[in-house]
């Protein structure tokens, strides 16, 4: 799928997040979800695990579980009345088969997702999803694993969610990267598995936009899943690594509604990528107050001031890290005093690399506009309603003229 074409399909308006779609809409959705869950309940579970029992064994009370369900309902941007449905959907996660493949990757998403952690309930739920095949995690290796993959595809034709981690080399690297004994190229492998999938979830920046392998000069000709597959619904969950909570969100949404979540022009679920890091950043108040870190280790750094001047890409990066955070929500990059590096934005390796003087860098706006702008144009148009922070920004006076021309204001 051509990205420019995609982008043009979506107007700025459609890229906005609509958190209240009206009573009639939610009533209708509720009924559809209800019917979907009743339908799923009739299917024999793929893995015979009772989540209520698992949670109890783990010492998680029903009350904790419902708390998690209500937080997840909010994350999915659904009204609170959907909470019982979300809880039910979580219990039915073992009805949806998942196949996970790794292509040109570093295994970082798998590490973040399955072998590492996520919020407690999320992680237990992930244990019970029906992961039919995962290359790194599967006990059998080599030929055995290949046979198992084939079985999984045949058994769940048209029903499985295909998770893809890693980019696909379609240039010079096409023949350099092959899979297993068959010697298939990554592209052939992906297309074959995509044909029988219900939908494809591209996990991490490599699978969505090509990521690190696609950084200039892109030695292998790496691209994302959406550049290769054009006959299936695709959901992109960028970031390096992708946040496990968003992965759970997507699966849960699929279980609940039987559909993929609402996406933006870059096929990212709006519930996770509808806002910028900056919008909900814990250091936002310092930005508005004009309090910045001016140099690593200075007084501002010791006082957790805003990292914008140190090259933080939070204002241009659409993701929910500032709310969901990482590793049991213990911290996130900005919490450790380093600005956001924009790892979930397309082409960030070439455009966002963090030491570049921000005022000069041309950054593609995403998703609501295809025009490249420098950060300060960006800032003046979009960053802040109050404009206080920007007013004392060092270069504000230099670019003040641009404000009047700014079409975004």
């Amino acid at each position: 799928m051509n990205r420019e074409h995609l982008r043009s399909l979506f107007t700025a308006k459609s890229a906005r997040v609509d958190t209240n779609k009206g009573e009639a809409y939610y009533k209708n959705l509720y009924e559809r979800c209800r019917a979907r869950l009743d339908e799923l309940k009739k299917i024999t579970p793929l893995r015979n695990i009772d989540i209520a029992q698992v949670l109890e064994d783990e010492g998680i009370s029903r009350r904790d579980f419902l708390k998690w369900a209500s937080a997840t309902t909010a994350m999915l941007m659904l009204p609170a009345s959907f909470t019982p449905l979300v809880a039910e959907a979580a219990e039915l996660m073992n009805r949806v088969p998942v196949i996970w493949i790794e292509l040109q990757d570093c295994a970082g998403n798998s590490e973040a997702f399955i072998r590492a952690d996520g919020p407690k309930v999320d992680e237990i739920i992930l244990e019970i999803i029906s992961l039919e095949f995962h290359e790194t995690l599967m006990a059998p290796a080599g030929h055995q694993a290949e046979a198992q993959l084939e079985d999984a595809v045949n058994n769940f034709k048209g029903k499985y969610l295909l998770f893809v981690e890693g980019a696909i080399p379609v240039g010079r690297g096409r023949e350099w990267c092959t899979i297993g004994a068959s010697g298939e190229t990554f592209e052939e492998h992906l297309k074959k598995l995509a044909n029988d999938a219900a939908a494809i979830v591209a996990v991490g920046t490599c699978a969505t936009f090509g990521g690190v392998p696609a950084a200039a000069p892109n030695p292998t000709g790496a691209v994302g899943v959406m550049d290769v597959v054009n006959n299936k619904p695709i959901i992109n969950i960028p970031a390096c690594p992708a946040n496990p909570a968003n992965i759970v969100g997507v699966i849960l949404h699929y279980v609940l509604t039987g559909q993929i979540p609402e996406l933006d022009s870059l096929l990212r679920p709006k519930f996770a990528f509808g806002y910028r890091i900056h919008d909900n950043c814990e250091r936002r108040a310092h930005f508005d107050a004009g309090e910045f870190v001016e140099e690593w280790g200075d007084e501002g750094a010791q006082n957790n001031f805003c990292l914008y001047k140190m090259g933080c890409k939070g204002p241009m990066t659409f993701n929910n890290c500032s709310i969901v955070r990482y590793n049991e929500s213990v911290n996130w990059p900005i919490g450790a005093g380093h600005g956001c590096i924009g790892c979930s934005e397309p082409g960030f390796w070439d455009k966002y690399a963090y030491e570049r003087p921000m005022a000069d860098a041309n950054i593609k706006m995403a998703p609501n506009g295809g025009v490249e702008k420098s950060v300060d144009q960006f800032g003046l148009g979009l960053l802040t309603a109050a404009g206080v922070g920007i007013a004392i920004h060092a270069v504000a006076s230099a670019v003040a003229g641009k404000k009047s021309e700014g079409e975004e204001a």
Partner: protein
Amino acid sequence: MKIELIEKIEGEAFLDVSCRQGKVRDAYVRFPHYRGIEKILVGRDPLDALVINPRVCGICGHAHLQATVRTLEKLAGFEPNEKVKKIREITRFCEMVQNHIKWFYLVVFDRLGLTYDFRTVHVMIQKINMLAAIFSGQWPHSSYALPGGVTCDPSQLEILQAKRLVQSVREHFVLLVGAFDIKNLSKDLKRLYDRLEERDLLYTGKSLDRFITFGSDSYVQSSKILHGKVRPAKLHNIREFGQEKSHAKGVTYKGKFYETGPLARTMLRGDLFVKQLHRRYKDSITTRIFARIYEVGTLLKKIDEHLRTIDISEPSYTPLEIPDGETMSAIEAARGSLIHKVCIEKGKIAEYVIITPTQWNLSNAKNGESSIIKKALIGAQCEATDIIFRSFDICSVCTTH
């Protein structure tokens, strides 16, 4: 008879083995994937490497970040203060610990058909990653370290939180594996030993008995063991060479192959438990596997020590200019010594070379010199190839980068 073993590890690796009468006669390792990260780095600002290099590997990204930082600092002739060193070591040791635990249970126990307490293992991994994230923001793939220091500036509150986590992981660890007492093994260590004995694997996988470590920190000092003698190891003696049908390069030290990783580190440190095992089983899979899990305990103790002695009033960062020039430095990663080499001209990267631990352990033989993996496999029972191969804790994504 020829066997082709395809290992789905982090990425994919092929092991071509030819067998006669049930014994391995010859072996060749191939890596079929490639991303070209060294090429991507050329022409970029040196600081770009801080963002790109951690992405070489999703499991030891921290080590790649710190190797990059140390190489650039070395170029500037800069040595960080104690606080910075300790914070960096804490997070890197956390990464090593979580890697070893995952490998021990998810790979070794799984392959040997042993069951384990999945929940406790999971909790340990989770907590150790949380500990790293307190300082690094997230795990995997963090960017909190940069030439001149670290961006985090922990308060006593964070130190306390970290101390509690390391305490809890240490408690879980002891409950799982028991004490490292060779005459009195218990719990999971005993179960592992018994299983190896039962399958007649105790003495299998012996290799060249040469060890090398290039990283120097509070845990281990750069040195090598050849013919039982400890000597300093010098980075300029390292040579890489291309290998047929594989995207991984081989690597030698003065034309010879050496083993790197936990076994090398513990041998060079002279840890009694590993020395005792080595006396009996030499560098077989037994010593190799036990050395790696033994390291978890030592590293956790180091983390705890650092948390107790860190002086948080020291600055987190010292401003630093990165000059043009060429240099090379090493850091200890979970799987062994990770070497980064950079050449900067007119403020841009002219060349960047990454040599990973798995390259040392999985080089194919060259010029009549037998390599670590080849020596370990030849003569072994064909059925044992898988566990011998796995005992090196291979990472394919790192190796081919």
